[in-house]
C-alpha cells in the first residue's frame, strides 16, 4: 500500500474484502446484510487506485470472520474480490470469491412477467451460467440476467 492509501489503519482481527470493483462497496454491504444498524465496526475505502482494476473498493469488517458461503454472494457484483481473514494483524487465510452454480433468494428476476415476481411461496432461484462477466438465468422463466445486477438485489 502507498502512504496515500493508509487513510484507514490495518485491522487487528476480522475480514478484509479487497479488489471490489470501484463503486460497489455499498452493494457488497447490502449483499452481506450489513446495514447502518449492524453491530460491527466497518471501514470503507472507495475508488482507490488499483493496478488490476483501475479503481477498486475495500471493505474492512472488524472482529468478524465472514464465512466463505456468506461472502461468495458478493461475486455477483465483484467477481474478482479477494477475502482476507485477519488475526492479530496477520492474514491467516486468503481466497478469491467464487459463485456457486445456483443462487437462491438473493437476486430477483428482471422479468416483470416472471412467476417468481408474484406472491407465490417461493424464493427466487437463478442459475449461474457465467462467472466473469456474471451471467445468470432465472430457473423459472429462463430469462438471462446480465446487466445492472446490483439493481435486482433483494
Amino acid at each position, binding site marked *: 500500500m502507498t502512504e496515500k492509501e493508509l487513510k484507514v489503519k490495518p485491522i487487528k482481527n476480522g475480514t478484509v474484502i479487497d479488489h471490489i470493483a470501484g463503486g460497489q462497496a455499498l452493494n457488497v454491504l447490502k*449483499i452481506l446484510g450489513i446495514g447502518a444498524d449492524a453491530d460491527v465496526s466497518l471501514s470503507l475505502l472507495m475508488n482507490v487506485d488499483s493496478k488490476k482494476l483501475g479503481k477498486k473498493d475495500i471493505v474492512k469488517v472488524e472482529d468478524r470472520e465472514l464465512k466463505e*458461503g456468506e461472502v*461468495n*454472494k458478493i461475486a455477483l457484483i465483484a467477481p474478482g474480490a479477494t477475502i482476507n481473514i485477519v488475526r492479530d494483524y496477520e492474514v491467516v487465510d486468503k481466497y478469491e470469491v467464487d459463485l*456457486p*452454480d*445456483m*443462487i*437462491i*433468494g*438473493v437476486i430477483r*428476476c428482471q*422479468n416483470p*412477467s*416472471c*412467476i*417468481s415476481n*408474484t*406472491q*407465490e*411461496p*417461493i*424464493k427466487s*432461484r437463478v442459475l449461474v451460467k457465467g462467472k466473469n462477466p456474471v451471467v445468470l438465468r*432465472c*430457473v*423459472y*422463466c*429462463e*430469462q*438471462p440476467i446480465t446487466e445492472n445486477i446490483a439493481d435486482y438485489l*433483494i
Partner: protein
Amino acid sequence: MFKRRHVLSMRDFSREEIDSVLETAASLEPYAREKSTDLLSGKILALLFFEPSTRTRMSFETAMKRLGGKTINLGSAEASSIAKGESLADTVRVIGEYADALVIRHPKEGSARLAAEFSPVPVLNGGDGAGHHPTQTLLDLYTIKKESHLENLSVALVGDLKYGRTVHSLAYALALYGAEINLVSPPTLRMPEQIRTDLLGKGTRVSETSDLSEVINRVDVLYVTRIQRERFPDPLEYSKVARSYRITPENLTDVKDGLIIMHPLPRVDEISPAVDQTPHAVYFKQSFYGVPVRMALLKMILDGGQDGGLECGGEIRGTSKDRSKDRSGGWSG
C-alpha cells in the same frame, strides 16, 4: 424415459427423446380420429387454463378421451378459488391430488415450472405467458416430419419473433436437427438476442431480415405467426406492425414445389384464405396433429415409455415433505 415426467420446456428434451415422442405419435395417429383405445382407462387429466385457449385445451381433452381417460376442468379462473386469492402453488397441490396429470396454461412465465415444484403428479406446460409451449413445438415438429422432412431443412420463421413463444421453442428444437433458420420480422419484433446467440452457439445457420421476399423462394417451411395484440403494452406500437406480412397466392408463384406453410393458429390476416386451397397450406392438418402428439405424451407419461413398458427417468419429486427441502445445492440468502 418418460413415465411420470414433467413436460415444461423444449430445453429439457434431447433429440432422441423428441424422436421417440414423434414415433409414438405416428403409431397413435389412427386412434386420434374415429377410433379410440382404453390405454388410459381410469386415468384423469386436469386442465388448468388461466388464459383463453381453444386448440390446446380441446386437443388435450380429445387426446385424453381418445386414450380412454377422463378430464376435469378448472373452469374459468373467476369462478374458482383463484378469484379468492389462492396461490398457484396451493391450487396445483390440491388439484394434483384429484388427477393423474395436470395441463397448465398461465399468463406468467415460469408458472409451469413452479407448478411442477408443488404438484404431486406430472405437469404439462400448455403455454406460460411469452415463455414456453413445448407441446406446440412437438406438434410442429411432427407436422414438418410428416408433411416435409426434418433433415437438411431450411425454414423461415415469420412475424412476431419477439413475443411469439411458439417460435422460440421451435427454433431451439430445429437447431437440434441442424436446420437453417431464417428469421423474418419487423425490426421491433426481432428474435430476442439471447436466443439468436444460443442458436449461433450451437452452430445453427441463422439469417435475419425484415423482407420476406429474400427467403420465401428457397425455404422448405414457411412458419407464419400472428402478431399478438395481447402481448403489446402499447396499442400504438401494435398498430405500427399489425399488418407487416400477408401471405397470398401471388407471393407463392416461385416457391419450392414442396413448400409447406404452417401457422399455430388462430390466424387473423397473415395468411389469405385463398392460400388454404393451395397444396402448400398444412396449418389445419398441423392443428389436428396436436391430438396424436398430445396422445403420445399422455401415454408415455401416464402409461410408461414408447412401448408402454418403460419405467425409468421419473422426475416427480417425491412427497411434499421432500419438496420442501432445498434441492438446489446452492446457498440461500
